[in-house]
């Protein structure tokens, strides 16, 4: 993918796919996350993480349901930490980054 890469996306209004989450999430997961199956709690659509609509990368990656755009996850990378928030609520996990 991304021969054009994430380079333009700061000024882009369009989204990428959940495929683009593979690298960032590989810092905290031991299996490839893009084939993870998911059911949207809002609209009931099922699919893989790779099919999410991903906005960003700045100020963070926002993954949304391709059916109804409900929040699926937010991922923020900071120098010492990676923050991961699953779903639309407020509680986030903060992971240490090497």
């Amino acid at each position: 993918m991304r021969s054009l890469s994430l380079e333009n996306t700061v000024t882009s209004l369009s989204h990428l796919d959940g495929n683009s989450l593979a690298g960032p999430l590989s810092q905290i997961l031991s299996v490839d996350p893009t084939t993870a199956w998911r059911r949207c709690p809002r609209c009931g659509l099922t699919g893989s993480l790779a099919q999410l609509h991903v906005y960003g990368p700045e100020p963070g990656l926002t993954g949304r349901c391709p059916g109804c755009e409900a929040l699926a996850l937010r991922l923020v990378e900071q120098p010492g930490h990676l923050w991961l928030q699953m779903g639309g609520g407020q509680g986030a996990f903060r992971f240490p980054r090497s």
Partner: protein
Amino acid sequence: MSNFSPGFHGRTHRFEGRLPPGQYPTESFPVLSAGPTPHVPTEDWSFTVTAEQGRARRWDWEEMMSLPQEEVTVDIHCVTRWSKFDTVWRGVSVDTFLDGVETTADFAVAHGEGGYTTNLPLEDLRGGKAWLVHTYDGFPLSPEHGGPVRLLVPHLYFWKSAKWVTGLSLTLQDEPGFWEAAGYHNYGDPWREQRAWSD
């Protein structure tokens, strides 16, 4: 001393003292998105202030436009490190909306179309420091920049200036918003470089 370009000082000198630490000046106006861009017709737009007891006041587009309008020229600073100087906006001071609202709340949550939220101390929305703006650089604010109406709080990082603003909830407790809950600083002062939660 060169004989060419007398008086030319380049770009950075012009903004000496106006560029917060870790920022660079930009002429462009980058768009950052966390979701699809909503297109809200002005006739469907409204803004609601809800006090902590649940009492709400609501303004539609025409009511908002009939309030006293102000033109402000301010510098804005994005946490992704760009700063833009002398941006010109037109809109209504948040003071005008809060005038007559009975509250003992210390905090506020701004709500944007599509579920975006950001939290601020109520103090930072009062005293001529924040506006609801509908015009940028003489033109109606475009959807990608938060139109028809966005919040403008120029003394904080720009994620606090919620796009597509639809409401303000006044709260007794501080409630982290969309990015604040995901690792960004709770207050976000660019001059103290409050980017991450722990800065």
